[in-house]
């Protein structure tokens, strides 16, 4: 069975290490916050100007001056700090944020990512995505393995306009966990019940399969 969005988030959460500063993008990446493993302390960065993002507020306690980068009402955790947008991207550019998790429309076998623009459609903008992918030390992409038409989103080269080049380190899709290596997409784990053959068939870019590929456990 392919992973649900929640399971993709759950699997990415296992990549968190104690003491990490983490930026979570909009969509599936946001769900990662719900699965932070016991005993692991991470600080969530929101690029509109907050370190120490907490859960959504209780009903009636929403504060319009306190939102995340998705413009959702949030809370802070003890030890949090506010800052301006230049400092926010300054800490990202300087490599202080340990991990960035974001979504993608396409990823290429050398780690290029496209996630901001579809030619012919209204372009809303890149927001902070180009800054994040240009500077983050470790980038994990959360995405579906194929688009709604069933075409692979893991390609030899991105067809859509790029957001950043040679930056993605790992992909967690609904079918597999893959590392980006100098040789191509390296298959690390497969979703429960998903065969290596199916992953091969749905990966258009170069796929490296070495030895037995373990199944993810949930």
């Amino acid at each position, binding site marked *: 069975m392919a992973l649900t969005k929640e399971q993709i988030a759950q699997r990415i959460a296992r990549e968190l290490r104690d003491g990490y500063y983490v930026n979570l993008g909009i969509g599936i990446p946001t769900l990662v916050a719900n699965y932070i493993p016991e005993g692991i302390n991470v600080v969530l960065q*929101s*690029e*509109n*100007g*907050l370190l120490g993002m907490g*859960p*959504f*507020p*209780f*009903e*009636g*306690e*929403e*504060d*319009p*001056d*306190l*939102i*995340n980068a*998705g*413009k*959702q*009402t*949030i809370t802070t955790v003890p030890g949090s700090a*506010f*800052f*301006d*947008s*230049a400092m*926010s*991207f*300054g800490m*990202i*550019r300087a490599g202080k944020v340990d991990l960035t998790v974001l979504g993608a429309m396409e990823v290429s076998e050398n780690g*290029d990512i496209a996630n901001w623009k579809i030619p012919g459609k*209204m*372009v*809303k*903008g*890149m*927001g*902070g*995505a*180009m*800054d994040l992918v*240009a*500077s983050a030390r470790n980038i994990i992409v959360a995405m579906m393995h194929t688009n709604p038409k069933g075409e692979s989103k893991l390609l030899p080269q991105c067809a859509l*306009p*790029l*957001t*950043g*080049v*040679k930056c993605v380190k790992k992909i967690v899709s609904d079918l597999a966990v893959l590392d980006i290596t100098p040789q191509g997409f390296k298959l690390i784990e497969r979703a429960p019940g998903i065969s290596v053959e199916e992953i091969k068939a749905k990966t258009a870019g170069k796929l490296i399969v070495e030895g037995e590929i373990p199944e993810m456990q949930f």
Partner: protein
Amino acid sequence: MNKAVRDAGEAIRDIHDGAVLMLGGFGLCGIPENCIAALVKKGVKALTCISNNAGVDDFGIGLMLRQKQVRKMISSYVGENAEFERQLLSGELEVELIPQGTLATRCLAAGYGMPAIFTPAGVGTEIADGKEIRNFNGKEYLLEYAFDADYAIVKAWKGDTDGNLIYKETARNFNPLMAMAGKITIAEVEELVPAGELDPNMIHTPGIYVHRIFQGKDYQKRIEQRTVNPRPLPLLAG
């Protein structure tokens, strides 16, 4: 040095057609609501607006778009705004999209008196087209210029009559950067106090950057995405 003016109308009195404005805020959080209302009332046209977002159809910069006052938007994300989309597709409105960190740092550079910055954001993408690229320590960076804005219009939480400003929570965002970057900076605040009443240790924007300040009124502070968790059920006694 008393910089207090009566209201938004007086603060924006000399903003003319074709002016380049910076407007603080992220989404609808920390936007200068009073000045936007005054600009709509004044009806100035052909404005260039540098702002991270473009508001929504019936609030924020969206109100100025509706009156066709904006000729060009410089933003990182223009979001869900039907009137914006219509004007863009019809060619009435020009849009320049730039990465959010680049937008923030081009404001910072202006306020710090630096003509340009180097950033890796956009290297290898269409954003880099036609831009100077320099290699530092094996990594490529784009040359991006400091903004040059006629007016910066910002919103703060508290301010004093000398123009010193304090922001609240994530309503800070672009406001302190733009406050530093305008040839003329206008600040609207929720609470204006006499100079000397704010703790100098707590000032985010020193008054030297601010030319006009007033206490705003009737803040709506609209929420774009109201997300909440259910309250835990109260424990039953006994």
